[in-house]
């Protein structure tokens, strides 16, 4: 960018930090550069499903594009580029880019992974980096540790009720649960009725041949399969919102059978194989929360 001013700060965006509503992006500022890297280390820290790597790279690319459209300066490196430069980790790339930009200030959002958290803490110690919240979760990293300090088991129910109160979710004005009862696990434990049918998941079909070829080119081992290299999960916020609306529209009757992981008797409703497992038509909560 020939006419851009010298950058004052470099901000790192990780592949699981695609939060366009983060306060970082409220205003476009041409002295801030946003960095995103497709790296060998992230593609190989375990043997990933081919669709997992594909999905992350596609979503990262779409996010970078969205930032550019909104007027932000983005420095994006594809796997081809980071491999070509011999920069295999996120911090390798950060060092290189910070040097290239003349040493601007470094900022990052708190990572969700312990591994990357450590990597970025020690990296920041040397250059004085600053971390900010990722502005996604409804609790802080240390809330569970604080709530259960000194306990040998952590009861989810205790935490959950605290969260319902704190955020006023399904609570009546007097501070009681809206319908009088906290827990409906008993009602949510039924076997599936015979006649139930599963609505088709919302599909966003796109060709991922180029990404797969790039993964192969760099000798990255993957597991799993992707039929005809067609990737069908949402990769942009707009697509996610569409899938969410569809889920709430089409699938409400399924909620009874698909909710409860819990800490006592296992809730158990295995979707019937004939309807669920043979085709791509399971009720996938968007974003795939486990």
């Amino acid at each position: 960018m020939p006419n851009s001013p010298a950058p004052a700060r470099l901000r790192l965006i990780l592949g699981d930090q695609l939060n366009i509503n983060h306060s970082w992006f409220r205003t476009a500022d041409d002295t801030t550069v946003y960095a995103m890297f497709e790296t060998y280390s992230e593609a190989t820290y375990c043997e990933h499903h081919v669709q997992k790597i594909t999905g992350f790279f596609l979503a990262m690319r779409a996010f970078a594009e969205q930032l550019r459209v909104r007027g932000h300066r983005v420095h994006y490196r594809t796997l081809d580029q980071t491999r070509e430069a011999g920069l295999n980790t996120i911090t390798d790339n950060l060092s290189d880019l910070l040097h290239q930009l003349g040493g601007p200030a470094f900022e990052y959002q708190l990572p969700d992974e312990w591994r990357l958290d450590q990597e970025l803490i020690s990296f920041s110690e040397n250059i004085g980096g600053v971390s900010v919240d990722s502005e996604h979760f409804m609790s802080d990293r240390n809330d569970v540790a604080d709530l259960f300090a000194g306990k040998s088991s952590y009861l989810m129910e205790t935490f959950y009720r605290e969260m319902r109160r704190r955020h006023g979710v399904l609570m009546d004005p007097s501070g009681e649960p809206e319908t009088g009862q906290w827990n409906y696990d008993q009602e949510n434990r039924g076997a599936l009725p015979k006649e139930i049918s599963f609505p088709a998941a919302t599909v966003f079909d796109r060709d991922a041949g180029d990404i797969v070829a790039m993964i192969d080119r760099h000798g990255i081992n993957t597991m799993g399969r992707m039929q005809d290299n067609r990737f069908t999960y949402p990769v942009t916020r707009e697509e996610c919102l569409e899938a969410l609306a569809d889920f709430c529209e089409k699938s409400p009757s399924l909620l009874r059978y698909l909710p409860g992981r819990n800490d006592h008797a296992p809730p158990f409703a295995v979707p019937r194989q004939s309807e669920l497992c043979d085709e791509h038509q399971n009720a996938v909560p968007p974003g795939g929360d486990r």
Partner: protein
Amino acid sequence: MNTKMLSPREVIDEAIRAWRQHPDAISFNQVEGFVRQILGWREYMRGVYWAQMPEFEHTNSLQHTRKLPGWYWTGDTKMNCLSHAVNQSLDLAYAHHIQRLMITGNFALILGAHPDEVDAWYLGVYIDAIQWVEITNTRGMSQRADGGLIATKPYCSSANYINKMSDYCRSCHYDPKKRTGERACPFNSLYWDFLDRHRERFAGNFRMKMMYRAWERKGSEEQVAILERAAWVKEHVEEL
């Protein structure tokens, strides 16, 4: 949601809005169960992760050491439930958490697979698997490697439960009712073998007393036959 393209708050709000709009189609227990997953379990597991890492990554309280069978990467097994759960995971990079917990996770647990092996598989195979959500569910909830921090009892079950709650068993090569013999469902002998192996640890667990009483009632002859079948199953796990 795990890539943060959607926020948990908006997902919860959308589900509640759908419930308020269609109270006839969605009952309160349904929407509560959904909210519980996101506002409860998801946030809780993330908190457990930060409370317990990095030690959590090395927990193996049941001292399990076996390898995960190769068919977790191919789907090639005659056990119908596992064939479906694994093949779907390989095709879609997705499975419902009940498939993850009660089919693939349950089998790995009662087989005695090393939690490192199980972790590697779950972290790799699912499109939503990022370590904070994967490891807490796998080592804690599913494999009970955490010594009971998250779940009060292990998520182990025999074929009986799978058969009751699904229709996988109806067209399976194995018989969910049999405990011994060539066609006996491997979940059965492995389930009792798991309980027997960990008797010292679990026999005093209030919520498992019924299971141990049922095991005692079988008598030593049947117990031996079941444990022999379990030994055969473990030795031939790649061919099941």
